[in-house]
């Protein structure tokens, strides 16, 4: 079974996932209401990427993580638990997991934002499908519980 994720506030980082070897997600802009950033960090060597959904690079991203990536990692740690995020990114031990995640450094790369943004839209679309009242017996294999 899949480890259950934790509930969290979604206004700042509405979407986060561990996929394609990266922690990636959608981060709301601090200044402009409609603008969102697609941010990601790859597993070691921790390649950093951040751009608007129109592929404009984030001005705050240099040799260190920008504030969007900071928010992404913080929310990913709430969502999955810091240990799971650190393991996925292959963050080295030595210091505390939280400190290591807060201080990620790596080469900057411009990943295309389209894939993650499309996945975010697909994610949202799950809430648009109507509910069902016919039984789904297959869900007996998926008891509600917490598996972590």
């Amino acid at each position, binding site marked *: 079974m899949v480890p259950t994720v934790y509930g*969290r*506030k979604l206004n700042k980082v509405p979407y986060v996932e561990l996929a394609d070897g990266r922690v990636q997600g959608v981060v709301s802009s601090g200044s402009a209401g409609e603008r969102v950033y697609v941010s990601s960090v790859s597993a070691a060597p921790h390649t950093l990427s951040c751009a608007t959904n129109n592929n404009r690079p984030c001005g705050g991203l240099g040799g260190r993580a920008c504030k969007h990536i900071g928010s992404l990692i913080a929310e990913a740690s709430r969502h999955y638990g810091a240990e799971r995020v650190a393991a996925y990114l292959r963050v080295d031990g030595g210091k505390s997991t939280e400190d290591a995640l807060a201080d990620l450094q790596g080469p900057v790369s411009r990943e295309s934002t389209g894939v993650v943004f499309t996945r975010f839209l*697909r994610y949202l679309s799950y809430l648009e499908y109507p*509910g069902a009242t016919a039984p*789904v017996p297959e869900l007996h294999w998926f*008891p*509600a519980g917490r598996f972590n």
Partner: protein
Amino acid sequence: MLPAPLTGLLASTPPGVDEALELTDGLDAVLTDGLARPGADGARALEDLAAATGSSPLAAPVREAVSSVGAGPVPAASLAALAGARTALTGAVHDALLGALDTALGRTRDEAGAPAAPSPEPAPELEGARSWLTELAVAGWRGVDRDLAAGADAALTPLLEDPSRRRLAVLLDGLGAELRAHCPLPGDQDPPARRWGDLWARAVLLAQDAFPAWPGAPAQEASGRLLPLGADVHQHPTAFQVQVHALLEPSDGGPVRLVRTSVSALKVDVLTRESVWGLLSEHTALLGALAEHRALDIEGMPLLDGGDLIWHDDRAHKGGPADRFAAARLHLAGAAAPAVPALERHPARIAEPVLLEGYAAKKTTKPALALELDLDGARLPVSLLRRPDSSSLDVRAAAGSGACIGLMRWDAGRWSVQMLGVAAKKDPADQTHTADWAMGPTDPKFATALRNSDPLGTLRERAGKLLRK
């Protein structure tokens, strides 16, 4: 349930169960390494499977399937035959276990009717699902990489659009999420072969053109008073279902029947614990009755042969207060139980309501957290796997209970009870049930958290802006 029959049930496995599961385990080992390279052990396991189905209508297709494995591309019909053979075996295990349980409970079960008719139409929307399931079987669980695991999404897209394919969509999405979370498997780690074999085999059957339409034709219309016993809660990252077990007092004066009714919704992973119930808010009467411990009056609700009421909230009214333990004490022992539909027979589907009283709950923390109910020496494990966190029914409430309404389950090769509701030992009027939060958390801490974060509202607002621009 009484201690003596329970002791008998726990002490022995019905004849044939171990042998049948040995055969399915053999197929699961082949699915672990992949049909592309079955190896000597795998070839022997497949031969055994063919021999076991030798006197059934499956004999010819299974024989053909077994000889096709390892000799070039595996035809789709071969996969269907292998999944069918596995399903026949797990179905037989289900029947033996449920028979033993019915005997222990003294429960009378309806005779099964004719199976649902095959669907006559070809279904091109299933093609993607079949080819993904074929690729999984050929690669084997050990050969599933990130890309293959992600293949569930493409297979799912045409199914999500079609409400009559909801069962397969929900199953593929659940399996896909597990494969994404665990694959590629580290070399030293074994896959949950029986579990994934179960999910794969059911998905292969659901992906056949001929699989009967869902949910099938209603057998009759039911009216009367519905007394909920408890709610079984199911969930994976993108699905949530509440299955209510209830006693139906038909208005025509017929015998009291055990029925269940299910309401479900698709969701996203971040909706968990206190935020899941909002997904079902359209079913006001049902959720209200669950939260307030009331009966329901229903009028003309479709009731399938398998005991499933197809919920129509507009054909139900909240009734008076109904104590679930009182209802169970009064009616559960004598209630008629429905037959299990042929294509649903599987040990994982066994979920028989029981009332347990006068036990001592024993909690242990080593080697792992465990809870057992001691009924006069018969020790029944409590299923902690099936313990939703979307209610106040936690281990503490369970350990402090003196009576419970639960579901008898057969998980991981043993009997256990899944608690749906408990009455405290110190004060039997102090009850906790799994659906107490149906109209919102009753625990102020979680109610405040839900008000502050409102994840469902936030996501719906986003969807409104982004999806309908």
